[in-house]
Structures are given as C-alpha cells and as structure tokens.
C-alpha cells in the first residue's frame, strides 16, 4: 500500500531532469481521477449488499444531493463529508 501510494508521488520529482510525457498520455492521465472516482462512487450509492437499490428508501442516494451541493459550493474536501454524514445521521433518526 505504501509503495503504490509513494511511487506516484515521488515519480515526477525523479523526472525533474525535464523529460516530459507525451501530450496524449498526460491528457489520458488527467481523466483518470474523475473516471476512477465516479467508478467508485456510483456503485456505492446504487448498490446495497450487492443488489441494485433504486428506491426512495435509498438514504445514501438522497444524501448525495446535499453532499454534491456542498462540494460544488464550498470546493472543500471535508465540509461535504461532514454534511453528508450529518444528513445520513438525521435521515436515520427520522426513518
């Protein structure tokens, strides 16, 4: 785990000698973060215990709305997390 975390972080510094990656590769790499995050996110919202959970009872899906809003408005990493968790806490108390 440590290795796969550290290697991407240190790799560019090792290339400080000025060698540049091909533009196509750089473009492709820039799309990896939104792609991988969406690929991780959507199943976690839509599936419960391995089953598709597309109902009004899906609290995670509902809570995603204020979480997204908070993320867009604050551009902060932790405020949306705290807000999302708060919404789920309240949601669970109400159900």
């Amino acid at each position: 785990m440590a290795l796969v975390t550290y290697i991407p972080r240190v790799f560019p510094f090792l290339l400080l000698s000025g060698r540049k990656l091909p533009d196509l590769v750089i473009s492709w790499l820039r799309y990896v973060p939104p792609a991988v995050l969406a690929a991780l996110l959507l199943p976690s919202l839509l599936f419960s215990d391995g089953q598709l959970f597309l109902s009004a009872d899906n609290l995670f899906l509902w809570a995603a709305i204020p979480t997204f809003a908070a993320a867009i408005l604050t551009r902060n990493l932790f405020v949306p997390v705290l807000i999302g968790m708060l919404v789920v806490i309240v949601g669970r108390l109400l159900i």
Partner: protein
Amino acid sequence: MSNHQNQPRIKGLPASLNGIVIALPVILGYLPVGFAYGVLAEKAGLSAVNTLLMSIVVFAGSAQLIAVGLFSAGIEPLTIILTTFVVNLRHMLMSAALSPYLQGWRKRELAWFAYELTDETFALHATRLPEDGVSRTETFAINAAAQAAWILGTLLGVVGGRLVTDIEPLALDYALPAMFIALLVMQLNRKTEVAVAVVSGLCSVGLYLAGWDQWHVIMATLVGATFGVVVEKWIK
C-alpha cells in the same frame, strides 16, 4: 511568482508555528475523517497496529478510506492495491505541478515532501508556494501538522471504535461515499471531465451488474479515461 501574502500568517511567530496556523483547516478536517477511518478499519477487522501504521506509513486519507471500504466488502487485495494506485495517480500530477517551486531542494527533502503530499496539503501548497521567499520550514511544518492530525484522528477512531458498536447512528459508513463525492467534484472542471465521470460511473455500475464485481472499477476507469481523450480529439 507573486509577492502578495495571501496566507493567514501571524506576525512574529516562527515559521514552524505559522505552518500550523496555515494548516488549521486541514487539521480540522483530518480529525473527524481520520476518526471515521479508524473506526471503519477496526470494524473491518484490521488490527490497531496495521490501521495506525497505514496512517503513518501510507498517509493517504482518501486511499485509506477506499482501501478499508473495499476490504470490508471482501474485495481481493490485488484489486485494492491496484485501485489505490489508480486513485493516487492524481498525486503524480500534483507533484508535477508543484515541482517548479521545489527547484534546488535536496533529494532527501524532495523525498520527504513527496511522502507527505495529499490532496489537502497540495491545495495549500499550490497557493502558497508561488509566493516569494516562502519558508521551507513552514512547508514542512504544514505537512507535519496535517499528518499529525490524521494520525491522531486515526488513533481516536481505533480507540473509539471499540466503544462504537454500531457505525450507523454516526453515519461513519457514509464517510467514504461522501469523500468520493467531494473528491469527484474537485475534479470536474471541464465539461469533458463531467462526461467522463458519467460514462465511467455508468460503466462501473453496468460491469458490476454483469458480474465483474472485482474489476469493475478499474475497467470503468480505463473506459472512461479513454472516452475522455477520444472526445477531446473529436471536439478539436
């Protein structure tokens, strides 16, 4: 490079302490999320030692949460490692973006800085490093304060995890999806990126339904990123 001081520094305070001042928003964020990570790790069956070690040695907040979440879902280690690698690839671009400001640093300092690089500290450094005469001590102080907060949060979570019998009332199981949302939104700066996210997300769901429950994330990412460059070329 700008001379404009846009950091909340306190006059007369040594660089190391000002580092902590600047890092405060990150510290305040890392404590609860580190706590969530600690509790989830404990629930997933990770030993306290391993959980803490990850925060000390790996120090990648989102990757740790993702790994613990995947681990809880019973996904095999190889996928977790690959997913961690792919999720952390963005750090490669962050490092590349900051490297012009770290010219002249010793190899040892660069190695240390790279190890401490996270999304949140990157955001801080991206605004302050372009300033003239930025203190290296302050830079390291920021990173140290951030990691200390993360480790402390983890420790509290590991200890508190024993007391938390049910994660649901505290919504700790939502920390991970919420973090994905926040990270995703930060990545959506261009229309093409939104399109990529949609394509990749749907692919991931589709592949999961088709039974690819171990590899859906990586395959969807490859499809999504490739879709992105194809669309980009097509638009031009």
